[in-house]
């Protein structure tokens, strides 16, 4: 196995809701290896997004620590990390082109090179003809493509994705799965992908971390054995996919049932 990029060590988070203390994540440990695509799934409110937020310095842990390339995550996000939010975080006052250019502008890349790299990203995302469009004129799927390319254009080695396709319809989602897999196939970034959608996790990931309901602990870590490259449509009808889906669903289902009782 290749080297460990993200090490989660005995991580806990407790939120204060007024006088009450609400434990969100409790004693979670796992590793994410270089070039690995890891999905974190669990029932809603299990703290899976909180773990991602802690990896990205958006939330401070109550106990335990996260190491990214051996360095403890502090108040500012590590420079090699890219982050895609579930919420639309495309800047509404910037055109598609200028949104994608943001990270390059921040890094002081020359105008010329920004032009070249943005054009390339626009092409990869299939956004040709929309370069000058403002986000308000785009569909949700297109806006999320812009957000994804905006993160990828600066070549992050580690990509954290917080239910990035959660608000999209099934069809758009499948298209974006295919595109994400294609993009990931080129560079093999280390990805941590949080979702509540089990089929999405199986389609995309090498390994799946299944969480229990609140307070979130690790229920099991599952290795997805489906071969790559994967065809997101054909995959769903294959026997292996159904078998893996059944196995994880069984574990996840226990959590959902306990919640109901």
């Amino acid at each position, binding site marked *: 196995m290749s080297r460990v990029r993200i090490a989660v060590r005995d991580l806990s988070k407790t939120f204060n809701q007024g006088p009450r203390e609400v434990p969100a994540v409790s004693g979670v440990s796992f590793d994410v290896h270089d070039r690995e695509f890891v999905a974190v799934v669990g029932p809603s409110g299990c703290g899976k997004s909180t773990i991602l937020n802690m990896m990205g310095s*958006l939330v401070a842990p109550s106990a335990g620590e996260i190491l990214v390339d051996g360095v403890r995550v502090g108040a*500012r996000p590590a420079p090699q990390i890219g*982050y895609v939010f579930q919420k639309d975080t495309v800047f509404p006052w910037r*055109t598609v082109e200028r949104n994608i250019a943001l990270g390059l*502008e921040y890094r002081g890349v020359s105008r010329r090179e920004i032009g070249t790299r943005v054009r390339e990203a626009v092409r990869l995302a299939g956004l040709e003809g929309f370069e000058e469009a403002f986000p*308000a004129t785009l569909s949700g799927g297109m806006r999320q493509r812009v957000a994804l390319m905006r993160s990828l254009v600066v070549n992050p080695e580690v990509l954290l994705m917080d239910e990035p396709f959660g608000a999209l319809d099934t069809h758009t989602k499948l298209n974006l799965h295919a595109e994400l897999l294609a993009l990931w196939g080129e560079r093999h970034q280390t990805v941590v992908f949080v979702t509540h959608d089990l089929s999405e996790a199986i389609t995309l990931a090498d390994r799946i971390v299944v969480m229990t309901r609140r307070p979130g602990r690790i229920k099991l870590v599952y290795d997805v054995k489906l071969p790559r490259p994967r065809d997101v449509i054909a995959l769903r009808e294959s026997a292996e996919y159904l078998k893996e889906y059944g196995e994880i669903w069984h574990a996840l289902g226990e959590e959902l049932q306990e919640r109901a009782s």
Partner: protein
Amino acid sequence: MKKGSAGVWAWRIGILVVVLAAWEYLTGIKAISKTPGLYWIDPFFISRPSAIARRFVFLMSDQVRLPLWRMALSTVQSTLWGFLVGITTGFIAGLLLGRSDRIARVFDPFIVAFNSLPRIALVPLITMIFGFGLLAKIVLAWSIVFFIVFFNTFQGARSVDQDLISSARFLGAGERQILRTVIVPSALAWTFASLTPSISFALIGVVVGEFIGGESGGGLGYLIIQSLGTLNAADMMVALVVLGAIGIVMALGIRQIEVRLLRWRPEYQKR
């Protein structure tokens, strides 16, 4: 032009013509024939369109010491200056206080107190300090515009989406870059939305300043007060008509700028 707008314009012009004709006619019939000064509707108070038009031509000419166009120019000039200085200072102050909880908390009671003071009560004081000229009018317009823009920008700077700031940080932005690319544009969206009310209020401030400013301040407000002194309704009406025209033109101009600056907003998208 939108569909059916010709019909709308026909109605508008029709209403205007009817009102003006009725005004002209009704102020022309006497209550008791041949008795001077007894009208159904006395043109002494509201004048008549024909008299207003005559006075307009006369006041525009060089026969008067202070022609109408120079007064109008003085009003427009002070309004624009008050407006420009007001939005600039209001924006800077709003941004500063909006992004610093500490400064905001310190200044809060002063701002509330100053803003709840009726601005018209300040006119004599401002005139005393800044004299009877252009400056007093500008300061007055500024004192109103400043607060409109300030409160809007303050809100805007407060309500910057935290996730946009986080996104910028993940893309490698430093604090100054975040200010320039996230906070200022977010706040500006709110500032721009306050431009149209600001220009109207700047005009109010200037006219009130001109009421008290006297001849050296000039302006249409001065013409109104002067007409009150001579009980000349026609001149007053001329001043009001010109003021109305100035108000409309400035509001439309600002509206154009606003649409241009906020063209990225969903509500400004062309269908």
